[in-house]
């Protein structure tokens, strides 16, 4: 595992001669084995932050480091779970999960062992030979999560992974991710616009402002979760009923609403 550091990161896009500042002065560290969610209004640049850590986009100022090394290009040490799954439709579930392991040069027996482990863990047993289009959205995203976890990456980057799922499926996936994350803590950067999802999943939450995207506030959820013993509750709705949960959620809502107000003026 490793940490992710954003140091005074800025991103300027050029649009037909004019410069648009998408991100400004982003300072954020996701510590080793910490789960950090970034929430913010759409267009605030939160996905750009994740893409920079993945090496799919680059900062125009400042630096993005993973495990102390400046990110230059994408690689299997920084596994991404995309909102649109991005599974290869011409490959089976098994082959999709195996793809990155081949790049890493993992030998056949070890590949088999690891794939079987995550197939069982993600409830994909029996679907090894299925093609993505034969699966529901929720099942497809399980494959995408398995494809990322199986690489045993330094960090996991999740870009609104449940955004394309229906409400019921999303809840199930959130509960499963919590189980996975608490049992095997990993360094996770999680992008979402769903406030409750962020409070439920994350150790800390960075709330971003509208363009130019800046970090408005970083909120510690983990200490609240531990002192209020949320993890003793099995169901997401029970956690969401906790006064401490409601308090955090409302606080973040207000931060986001503030910006909408600002925009209206």
């Amino acid at each position, binding site marked *: 595992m490793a940490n992710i550091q954003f140091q005074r990161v800025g991103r300027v896009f050029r649009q037909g001669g004019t410069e648009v500042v998408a991100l400004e002065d982003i300072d954020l560290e996701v510590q080793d084995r910490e789960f950090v969610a970034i929430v913010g209004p759409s267009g605030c640049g939160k996905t750009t932050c994740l893409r920079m850590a993945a090496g799919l986009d680059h900062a125009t100022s400042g630096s993005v480091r993973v495990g102390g090394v400046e990110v230059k290009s994408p*690689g299997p040490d920084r596994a991404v779970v995309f909102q649109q799954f991005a599974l290869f439709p011409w490959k089976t579930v098994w082959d999709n999960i195996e*793809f990155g392991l081949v790049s890493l040069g993992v030998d056949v027996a070890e590949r088999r062992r690891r794939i079987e482990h995550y197939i069982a863990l993600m409830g994909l047993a029996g679907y090894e030979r299925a*093609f993505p*289009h034969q699966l529901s959205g929720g099942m497809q995203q399980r494959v995408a999560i398995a494809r990322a976890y199986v690489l045993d990456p330094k960090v996991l980057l999740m870009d609104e992974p449940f955004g394309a799922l229906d409400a019921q499926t999303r809840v199930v996936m959130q509960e499963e991710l919590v189980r996975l994350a608490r049992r095997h803590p990993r360094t996770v950067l999680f992008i979402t616009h769903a406030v409750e999802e962020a409070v439920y999943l994350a150790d800390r939450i960075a709330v971003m402002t509208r363009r130019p995207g800046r970090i408005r506030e970083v909120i510690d959820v983990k200490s609240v979760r531990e002192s209020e013993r949320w993890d003793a509750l099995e169901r997401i709705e029970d956690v969401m009923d906790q006064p401490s949960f409601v308090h955090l959620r409302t606080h973040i809502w207000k931060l986001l609403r503030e910006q909408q107000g600002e925009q209206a003026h």
Partner: protein
Amino acid sequence: MIGPPLAQRELLRLTGAGTFAFLALWSAAALSGITSQQFLPAPWEVLARFARLLTEPFAGYTLLVHLSSSLQRFAMGFALAVAAGLPLGLLMAHFRWIDRLVAPLFEAVRFVAPIAWVPFAALWFGTGIGGPVLIIFMGAFPPVLINTYRGAKFVEAKYLEAARMLGAGPWRTMTEVLLPAAVPSIVAGLRISAGLGWQSLVGAELIVASSGVGYMMVKGQAAVSTATVMSGMIAIGLVGLLIDVVLRRLHRHIEQRRGL
């Protein structure tokens, strides 16, 4: 015109009516005596000639032997076109510098009709197998290249990003991402390519061959046997249709597998 879809039986009836009308007009023209029987043989005379060509050698061989030698040349030219067009299309889609290197030349050359290569085919290969193969290649190569290139170039960005994130190098990106992503476009290209290749073949055999359906037709013309020429046309049409049906089946099979 937009109306309710026609039933299968209705469609068959229309096809039948069209074919019948064509044959009736042809028969009437042949019988009317506008031209001599030698210039326009009646359908049944062509049919009889076709049947005789199957058993009786003409221009050295029976019709089936001519056909098989044409098909061999076609298969070679087509295979070469695929063997060259597929990898080059993938390379051009993946590496911008190869695209820049090849595209301008290719764009100009592809407008030269395959048959325009006949002089070179004759000079370089005489009546050997190389001449027709070269001409078929010139007809079949551009659609393979263009469709592979387009199919691979317009692969959705998310697949390329996933491949990069998963550590795929150029080889795996081309063979495991670009190629399968381009398959529907490639198969569509193969259909066009096979059609153009098969057409060019007959043109080639008219000039640079000593066997094949095209060669048989030239000999038929020399012998003023228009029924032989028409038999050749029918054989070409039927085989062309067969090739297209096979590739169309392949196309549909692949789309079904992908769940399209």
